[in-house]
């Protein structure tokens, strides 16, 4: 059975309208900036927020279709891992995991045995009697996952499951979460603002901006062919729209880029910041894409320096270049400094709008 969610919720001036499909065994990540409506969508699918319009159904089973049908959250076969986990502090870890089974009418003995099994699966057997308060962030997340999975839900909803963790544990917990999701046979909807979480954990990404889906596809596809500035920024590419005639692309916002391979019509032009190099004076030879540019910002990344440039009027208005710290020292970079930016045409990727 497939989950179909046509989620429409209006809240004041904010208007959410998403069409989601999640197949059994599939992990779909809803990726977007804060305030895009991701959590609202999760709440609507969980039944914590009634739809304003649209329809949510698992196969033939309708969960929400205003104004006729609304199934309360406790009657939907779901498991939810909340952003701050919301473990019940007055219950032990074992009782937390057993809670859903007890609520669904499983007898105490069976529920506890099943809960103990789940705690063992997430590697926390020795914490069965511990109070959630005494757990670390990563452990609490695993208990929350066990609690959500213990009832064998058809749909698993994860709301920013890694956001509350510190950087040193995230890597480990993410890998483990990936293993559990791989074993889970139901449908998973993962809400995140972190592109890395989405790329690593999901089979398919759905990117949401301002209440609308702007792009969806496999992680590799999204990483290669972003379609909005937000997605380009997430995957770390320079992205422009323009009209191609042969090897020349006239950019929508002004400037021209020359391609290695000819193209026609409206296209997206994408290239990594590492494809851009900077020179203090006009370089010798005749590179096809050479623009006079002005430095507008300098940012230190892990092992490279990202330089933000303004290459108008001949090139793009915002151009990102990744260069080495040594190159920064050689160029004596400072904001406002005029330079020459050169883009390697062979690293440019074009695809239709």
């Amino acid at each position, binding site marked *: 059975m497939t989950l179909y969610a046509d989620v429409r919720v209006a809240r004041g001036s904010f208007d959410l309208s998403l069409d989601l499909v999640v197949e059994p065994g599939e992990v779909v990540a809803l990726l977007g900036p804060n305030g895009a409506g991701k959590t609202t969508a999760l709440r609507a699918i969980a039944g914590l927020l009634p739809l304003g319009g649209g329809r949510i159904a698992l196969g033939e089973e309708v969960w929400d279709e205003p104004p006729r049908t609304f199934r309360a959250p*406790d009657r939907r076969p779901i*498991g939810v891992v909340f952003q701050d986990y919301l473990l*019940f502090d007055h219950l032990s870890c074992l009782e937390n995991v057993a809670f859903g089974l007890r*609520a669904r009418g499983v007898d105490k003995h069976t529920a506890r045995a099943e809960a103990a099994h789940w705690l063992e699966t997430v590697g926390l057997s020795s914490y069965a009697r511990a109070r959630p308060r005494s757990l670390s962030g990563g452990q609490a997340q695993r208990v929350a996952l066990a609690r959500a999975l213990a009832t064998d839900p058809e749909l698993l909803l994860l709301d920013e499951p890694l956001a509350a963790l510190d950087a040193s544990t995230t890597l480990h917990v993410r890998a483990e979460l990936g293993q559990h999701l791989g074993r889970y046979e139901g449908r998973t909807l993962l809400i995140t603002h972190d592109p890395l979480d989405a790329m690593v954990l999901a089979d398919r990404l759905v990117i949401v901006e301002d209440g609308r889906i702007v792009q969806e596809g496999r992680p590799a596809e999204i990483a290669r062919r972003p379609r909005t500035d937000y997605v380009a920024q997430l995957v770390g590419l320079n992205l422009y729209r323009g009209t191609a005639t042969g090897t020349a692309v006239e950019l929508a916002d002004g400037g021209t880029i020359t391609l290695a391979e000819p193209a026609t019509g409206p296209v997206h032009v994408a290239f990594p910041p590492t494809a851009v190099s900077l020179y203090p004076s006009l370089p010798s030879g005749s590179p096809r894409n050479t623009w006079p540019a002005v430095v507008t910002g300098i940012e230190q990344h892990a092992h490279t320096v990202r330089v933000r440039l303004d290459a108008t009027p001949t090139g793009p208005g915002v151009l990102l270049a990744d260069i080495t710290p040594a190159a920064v020292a050689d160029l004596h970079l400072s904001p406002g400094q005029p330079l020459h930016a050169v883009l390697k045409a062979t690293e440019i990727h074009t695809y239709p709008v």
Partner: protein
Amino acid sequence: MLLLPALIGLAFLLVPLIGLLAKAPWSTLPSRLFSADVWQALKLSLICATSATALCLLLGIPLAWLLARSGLPGRGIIRALVTVPLVLPPVVGGVALLLVLGRRGLVGEHLELWFGISFPFTTAGVVVAEAFVAMPFLVISVEGALRAADPRYEEAAATLGAGRWLTFRRVTLPSIAPGVVAGAVLCWARALGEFGATITFAGNLPGRTTTMPLAVYLALETDPDVAVVLSIVLLLVSVVVLASLRERWISGLR
């Protein structure tokens, strides 16, 4: 400039209590304490105050939930009405109860006619009068605790398949337990000390409606020493309540 009135204020509050202890007939105290009349009044007081507290818990917790969690329109007005018995002179409360639950009262007439139940001048009447006066303490305390509790835990319980009642019992109630206990203790102490509404609505029948405060008032006219002994017992109970509230529950609420 502030110190002198502050000290006078403190003395004003403490001197009567010290006077009570100073005038106590300590030599005859044990024998008077265990006299049949005192014991009877004390027992009746404890039973009635406890029953009234149970009644307040039964009705007050759902009422507090209604005020704190439901989107009921006019909640502000309901909350104001709930707190009326706090500021109402208890005698007025007693008169109002008589008018409603009395033999000729709005509801009382039918209760008597249909079920043969009559509240005025009975032990049950004492419980009703005490509950009427003490309930706001419980409702306010529980409502405060409910407002402070994070409703997202209830949502988490719902996603785990728990219906409203199960969620309330297993998630909401444990999380507000300190507030419920604090409210119940305050409620119980208020019920124990209730005088005005009780004597108006339930009268003063030894063994049936004469609770400790009524016995104190009665004894003052016949045997002042007994009044002092009874007062000391009530004072002791108040101190114990205060101490238990401070140490166990008020700290838990912070």
